């Protein structure tokens, strides 16, 4: 596919999508405080441009896999956001029927392969998805996302090597949001240029500005194009920022409010909206209409979640084995 022009309609879609993701996450945070969502809740606020730029570069049948900061990616891939909200609330109408919860979103139909809670656990899986596409002769590419903290796992380094050895159609995307929980990147290695980890494997690698969806698109386009044309994997370090705490119980003593504010000045949604206004891609009224649509859809999601039922207790035995009559040990 030739490289796309970033047209008016792209900007308008980016604006609406990213705004929706942001508001969806804000609402999830509010529901968490009301204890309607439990456990961990890792929000994507601030990182939206990474997803927006990536999606534009993907083609039908391309795959995505990521870690536990994973509520809005499946929405971007086409999953009904109501089902994501329901999953967050542990309802049987959710993407995993209430089994997975916040960290474990999946959609086979939309090529979203999770939602993984063990840091680094998804990295070899991403290579495996690509392995299968190559094996079957499909011209698809897998986008495998991870945090800056995840690159310190052995699974990352083993997978870099395997992906190069077997020339797999996969793009490894490190979303460097500055921190792994309370640990800054600078405190996890002797240098902070994470993208350079590709050099030892001779994997094409580069840093990318992750606050601007145009720059993300450019880098992703090149990497995906290379992978699709049998040029093998790429490692991108996309530099972004998370506005919220790691999960919901994080006092954030490891950073200053000023630092967060500094990044919020480069907010991807604002960047995109500024272009829309500058270039007069939409009138004030049209922008308000988008904002209203977003608000309404978020409300619909909450309503759907609230009205849905929790799974029945007997569902605990569902989906553990594909075998239908597996003989579970019942208590004695």
């Amino acid at each position, binding site marked *: 596919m030739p490289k796309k022009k970033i047209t008016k309609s792209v900007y308008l879609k980016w604006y609406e999508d990213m705004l929706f993701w942001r508001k969806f996450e804000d609402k999830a945070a509010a529901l968490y405080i009301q204890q309607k969502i439990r456990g961990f809740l890792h929000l994507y606020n601030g990182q939206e441009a990474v997803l927006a730029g990536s999606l534009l570069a993907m083609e039908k049948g391309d795959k995505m896999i990521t870690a536990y900061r994973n509520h809005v990616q499946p929405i971007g891939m086409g999953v009904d956001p109501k089902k994501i909200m329901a999953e967050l609330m542990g309802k049987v109408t959710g993407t*995993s029927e209430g089994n997975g*919860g916040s960290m474990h979103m999946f959609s086979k139909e939309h090529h979203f392969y999770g939602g993984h809670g063990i840091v680094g656990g998804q990295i070899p899986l991403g290579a495996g998805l690509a392995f299968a596409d190559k094996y079957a002769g499909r011209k698809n590419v897998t986008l495998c996302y991870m945090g800056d903290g995840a690159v*310190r796992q*052995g699974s990352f380094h083993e997978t870099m090597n395997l992906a190069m050895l077997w020339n797999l159609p996969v793009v490894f995307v490190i979303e460097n949001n500055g921190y792994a929980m309370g640990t800054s990147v600078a405190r996890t290695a002797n240098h902070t240029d994470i993208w350079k980890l590709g050099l030892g494997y001779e994997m094409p690698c580069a840093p990318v500005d992750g606050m601007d969806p145009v720059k993300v698109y450019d880098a992703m386009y090149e990497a995906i194009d290379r992978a699709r044309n049998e040029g093998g994997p790429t490692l991108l370090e996309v530099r972004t920022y998370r506005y919220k705490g790691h999960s919901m119980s994080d006092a954030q003593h490891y950073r200053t409010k000023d630092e967060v504010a500094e990044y919020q000045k480069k907010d991807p949604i604002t960047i995109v909206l500024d272009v829309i206004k500058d270039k007069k891609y939409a009138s004030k009224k049209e922008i308000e209409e988008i904002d209203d649509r977003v608000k309404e859809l978020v409300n619909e999601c909450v309503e759907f979640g609230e009205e849905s039922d929790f799974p029945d*207790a007997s*569902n605990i035995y569902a989906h*553990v084995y594909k075998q239908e009559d597996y003989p579970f040990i019942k*208590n004695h």
Partner: protein
Amino acid sequence: MSRVIQFREAVAEAMSEEMRRDENIYLMGEEVAEYNGAYKASKGMLDEFGPKRVIDTPIAELGFAGVGVGSAMNGLRPIIEFMTFNFSLVAIDQIINNAAKMYQMSGGQFNIPITFRGPTASAGQLGATHSQAFENWYANTPGLKVVVPSTPYDVKGLLKSAIRDDDPVLVMESEQMYGDKGEVPEEEYTLEIGKANIRREGKDVTIVSFGKIIKEALKAAEELEKEDISCEVIDLRTVRPIDYDTIIQSVKKTNRMVFLEEAWPLGSIATEVSFVVQREAFDFLDAPIRRLTTTDTPMAYAPTLVDAFLPNAKQVIDAVKGVMYIS
């Protein structure tokens, strides 16, 4: 003199006291230093001991668990914290193949005085990968010792013993216990690894348990007391080695046993203890032993599924009545 402190404070006190005694002890793990511990169980320790001895790591469990074992081969006494034992799985090779076997493989040249600690088992709605109890997995491995304290008093005494132990010891705590309060003496004390504790004396039924879930057994015993059923509740405290004597003596007195454990049933600690009890006290048993575990499934996220997964006081009450043939 004793005072009431939190479980997490007891953990920090145990580590700090031992580190004051011995320069060779250090604490290493994710967020243990600047963040004061993901669950604040090492609060204040960076301030007291400095970054040489209280060490933040990247998310590299395999690496730092192995660094711990290697440093123990070369004279140090590491305390390695796993943010939770769910994440010890990426490091399990270092624990099972290296820490547990080095002493024998080297013909007695290298013992490994290391402590691996952190929370185990479920902690609310965290889903399948973050809700696992591996006490029986580790207890299965010769060369390791496995301690599962259930009170602030116990964790302090047992953790100190673990740190002083010349063999690898796992101390398995719980996110849901760190806020628990209990009496802990001001004076120094240690508790022997491998000794069970009778938490409540009774004559009708022996309930054996360990770790956080024992609270359900204690709740059940209290309820049953109201119906004139007297339960003896034994806290194993250590699941390798297991204090079989205390259990068998109790069963010889009560003639009935119920085991409560937060773990999958197949190959659980309950299974092992039940075998030994039937072997050693067969003639004393007036009813088949009952075992309460989690369901034979991963733990799922929804609250209804969490409730379905975990054993609870009501099930204990029913099981106790079951072994007493009271309907």
